[in-house]
């Protein structure tokens, strides 16, 4: 061991970082899937969606959710940042490596890093919009029925992909489930949540049109 490593040795820190990464990641997946179900309440009608939104604002659940998402995303970014190959040479090596060995789980890790980085920007925009405007089916319909539709579509795909790959990796790393069957289950869940999101967006788009 080199002196500089001996001097900065704190092996517990590496474990804590790993724990923060995994726990925050799992919480975010739970949040995302709950979020998609809540947005999906538009399928039950405008009244159901607005009632749920009102309920969340009345009991300050929306504030709790906003604080939760900011803290958890910050913790997650702080923990996963060390994983992203930072130097140009490292970037060149990992992309070349993935192309060479043609291994799907290696590719999905690179896409995980790319989608994660992109989502950092998207999440900030999304949280700001919700905090400043609140939740209301009329406003959502107007937003979706504009260029923002593309924002939501891209965001939906990136978030679901990132969550799906992330939870897969967390579970196989800790060894709780078989890889092949886990992949299948997660693919089905991801396709379903994306479909639910798309249908919700379509309804909002249509509401925006008729309004």
């Amino acid at each position, binding site marked *: 061991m080199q002196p500089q490593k001996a001097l900065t040795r704190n092996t517990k820190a*590496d474990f804590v970082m790993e724990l923060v990464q995994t726990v925050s990641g799992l919480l975010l997946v739970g949040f995302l899937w709950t979020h998609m179900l809540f947005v999906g309440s538009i399928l039950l009608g405008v009244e159901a969606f607005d009632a749920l939104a009102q309920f969340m604002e009345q009991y300050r659940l929306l504030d709790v959710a906003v604080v939760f998402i900011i803290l958890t995303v910050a913790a997650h970014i702080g923990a996963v940042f060390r994983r992203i*190959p930072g130097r140009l040479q490292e970037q060149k090596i990992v992309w070349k490596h993935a192309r060479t060995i*043609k*291994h799907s789980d290696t590719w999905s890790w690179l896409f995980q890093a790319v989608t994660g980085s992109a989502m950092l920007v998207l999440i900030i925009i999304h949280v700001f919009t919700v905090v400043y405007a609140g939740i209301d089916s009329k406003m959502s319909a107007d937003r979706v029925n504009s260029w923002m539709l593309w924002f939501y579509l891209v965001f939906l795909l990136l978030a679901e992909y990132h969550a799906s790959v992330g939870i897969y990796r967390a579970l196989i790393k800790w*060894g709780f489930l078989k890889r092949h069957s886990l992949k299948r289950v997660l693919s089905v869940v991801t396709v379903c949540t994306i479909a639910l999101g798309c249908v919700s967006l379509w309804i909002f788009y249509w509401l925006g049109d008729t309004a």
Partner: protein
Amino acid sequence: MGLRQLTFHIFRYNPEIPNVNPAIKDYILQEEMGMTLFIALNKIREEQDSSLKYDFVCRAGICGSCGMLINGKPTLACRTLTKDLPADISLIPLPVFKLLGDLSVDTGTWFRDISLRTESWVHTEKDFDPHSPEDRMSNDTALKIYEAERCIECGCCISGCATANIKPDFIGAAGVNRVARFMVDPRDERDEQEYFDVVGSEDGIFGCVGLMACADTCPIGIPLQGQLAYVRRKMAIAGWRR
């Protein structure tokens, strides 16, 4: 299936002649029945280019010297049949390890270093008495140790690992598997905190990102996902209690 004309695209570079750049050189060879890459490379060296460097010892998948990237996949050349490959075959030396020349890399120094860093020997305070009978071990435990010890140190899991490719100090699946072997062994008296000192860091188990290329490439099929997860769980408990 008819025998084909094969084209080998082989990485050529001699670090001792640094003014000649690394290059891929093509060799054309007539396929034969039951041809392995061991046979093919020997034929190329005998008939076409005597300067080609590569390693083989046992030609039976036991010695672990002939690991290379075959069409990108890290595996053993001696156990790879040309009939399982397309007519164009690319051969590249295993990344991460020190390149000796062409397809030959030095895995020995790397594995020696891992053995020392993971302290791969039975730590015990007991004095060895050659006359007393050995302590009994359950068959289940013995089989678990044997499973981990099947590792032939070919280095394919390390070359397939993206993390090992960018972090030179990462011990990789081979290193973690080695630690798992001693964790299972009742003769080793190390407690969990002592193991944590050895693998409870970014250079050890917590450096693993979970790409599982190691498990997918291990040519002899050691269940590396299970070994990694076993050590990870043990070290998480140790880290929590620390």
